[in-house]
């Protein structure tokens, strides 16, 4: 039963295992779905999906599987537009319902689906209060706040509580992990930078007091020392952040990441530098980018050990001259002998654990302003978009040498 549903979930990236699937079957046998689709919806979600970040994918698959209707995002948005400014929900009396029921009868799924597809193709705008097109408050089979014996509710609120179209509401859209979230989520992602640090290697140089007491007592009071490995975190991080100019629209997300990094007290060392558009001879110590508070990039490269993990944050979008030419610096008074790209390459060579986080969404990297320079920077650093999922991937990348 529903085996395809299982595979569709897996295809969409919801990690469902066989164990969970068997549990679901057990639940179905025990009658926990109450023989209703909405019962099945909640039962299957509770058993199969173990993270709220997958709820949205689950909703999409559920909707897809149990309606058999392809709903490309564009179409959904289009229909959502038609449904704006709805008529107030119309309450139908018992007689009215019966009259409509008699007139229309229960349509079968197939013809209803075909009809909806046809409407989606031919409807050109909002229609409310009627009996054919997708709209509100009428007796058409499609739309909401109206009545039709076997209709499909599209958006809106359920007034009759009949069809399971909860999935279409996509209440969990904001929990998706490929959307950006808050400081706390960033912190959790960063915490993984510790997970992989020394746990299995290193010498046993710390006295395990608890085990020593236990072992000594078991030994009838004769002292037995137990040693253990200290679990210090050895991760050292250098963060270089682009500020000002084209980064302005992303100031919010960058400041969230900034506070998350600073709250993560588990790094052995943390260095924070700023730059504007591209890195040249100087790195700045605060966001004002003034030369009086700066250090030489040369010195940073020379003085820090190469085991620092380097995180670059920036949109990498600039004029190609800023990246490739000597004296390309956007601050005219600060010429640079070496082009920016050389500095980036030197940093990448020195800190071999490196990533570039880009607040520009990945899907538009190829056509946004600065796509040439994004491409060039991508050749030097592994680039991820600055979302939770991107940060996760970046953290994993930071644990292995390029």
């Amino acid at each position, binding site marked *: 039963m529903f085996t395809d549903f299982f595979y569709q979930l897996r295809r969409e990236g919801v990690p469902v*295992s066989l*164990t969970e699937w068997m*549990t679901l079957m057990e639940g179905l046998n025990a009658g*926990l779905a109450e023989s209703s689709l909405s019962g099945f919806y909640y039962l299957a979600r509770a*058993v199969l999906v*173990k993270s709220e970040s997958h709820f949205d994918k689950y909703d999409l698959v559920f909707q897809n599987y149990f309606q058999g209707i392809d709903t490309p995002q564009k179409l959904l948005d289009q229909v959502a537009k038609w449904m704006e400014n709805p008529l107030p929900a119309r309450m139908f009396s018992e007689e009215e319902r019966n009259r409509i029921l008699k007139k229309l009868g229960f349509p079968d799924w197939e013809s209803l689906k075909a009809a909806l597809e046809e409407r989606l193709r031919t409807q050109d705008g909002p229609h409310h209060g009627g009996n054919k097109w997708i709209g509100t408050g009428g007796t058409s089979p499609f739309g909401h706040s109206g009545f039709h014996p076997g209709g499909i509710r599209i958006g809106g609120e359920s007034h009759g509580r009949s069809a399971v179209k909860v999935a279409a509401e996509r209440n969990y859209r904001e929990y998706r992990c490929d959307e950006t979230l808050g400081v706390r989520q960033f912190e*959790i992602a960063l*915490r993984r930078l510790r997970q992989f640090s020394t746990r299995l290697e290193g010498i046993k140089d710390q006295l395990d007091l608890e085990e020593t007491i236990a072992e000594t*007592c078991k030994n009838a*009071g004769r002292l037995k020392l137990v040693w253990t490995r200290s679990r210090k975190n050895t991760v050292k991080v250098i963060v270089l952040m682009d500020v000002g100019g084209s980064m302005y629209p992303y100031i919010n997300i960058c400041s969230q990441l900034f506070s998350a990094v600073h709250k993560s007290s588990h790094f052995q060392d943390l260095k924070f530098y700023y730059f504007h558009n591209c890195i040249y001879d100087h790195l700045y110590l605060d966001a004002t980018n003034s030369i009086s508070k700066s250090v030489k990039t040369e010195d940073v490269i020379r003085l820090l050990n190469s085991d620092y993990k380097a995180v670059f944050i920036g949109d990498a979008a600039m004029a190609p001259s800023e990246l490739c030419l000597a004296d390309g610096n956007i601050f005219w008074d600060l010429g640079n002998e070496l082009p920016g790209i050389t500095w980036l390459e030197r940093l990448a060579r020195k800190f071999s654990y490196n990533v570039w986080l880009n607040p520009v969404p990945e899907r538009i990297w190829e056509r946004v302003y600065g796509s040439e320079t994004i491409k060039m920077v991508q050749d030097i650093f592994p680039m991820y978009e600055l979302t939770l999922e991107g940060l996760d991937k970046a953290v994993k990348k930071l644990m292995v040498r390029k």
Partner: protein
Amino acid sequence: MTKQITYKGTEDYIVSPDLRNSVNISVALSRPLLIKGEPGTGKTVLAESIARSLDLNLLIWNIKSTTKAQDGLYVYDTVQRLYDSQFGERDVSDIKQYIKLGKLGEAFASPERVILLIDEIDKADLEFPNDLLWELDVMSFYIPETGETIAAKHRPVVIITSNAEKELPDAFLRRCIFHYIDFPDQTMMADIVHVHYPDLEENLLTEALKAFYWLRSINGLQKKPSTSELLDWVQALTVGGIAPDRISREIPFLGALLKKNQDFAVTLRQLHSRGSKEQARSVNRGYGW
């Protein structure tokens, strides 16, 4: 067949239908129920409510960063035994008296069915949930010191809460029923506040909720106010005798809702700009840099 027990919620705890559903699924399938959700959505209180509704005893195992899986099963008090062997009168050859059962052990050994709450499981070490897999699966464990096996007479109802501070291992998740508690919407929140303050004036509550949800909708808050903060705030409003029409305009006692400096600054700025926008609404004003 044993009588199916169903959880229906209790008077002092407002439960959404799908949460109730999840609880019943987990009881029926005898799998642990893993509850996640924003802080302050009543994860811990849920277990108390279930215990009361089903009329079962509740055992709470609070997890701390130092908690080990072994602590939940049993602790062998070797220090006491050593002490007794040197200075005491007790018979130290009877190891049994030095074995103290942990919360999980107690739940297994209990003569009747109990509810076991494992609170904030994500506080412990990463390996912690994995260490409990076997015991939660077969509901028994072996004590090598005494050669005893503690097996559950009745499978306890296990409720586990997590604040998502750490990812839980997949193997552990596979064995759980999962439920995410949504932040309550305005109507449900009104019910919740009513449970705590039955005599609250209706328009004070409406205004307070309006301000509260507006506050939560502000972008860039580091810590959004949650239910418990709302409850404190409502009490402050009542005690302070604030007129309802002042609430959303000024948001008095903001400190009860927000706990961070930066959040204060953000909110005050928004509040200010909202106020001036309202004044300027009639005036047609152009924008420009």
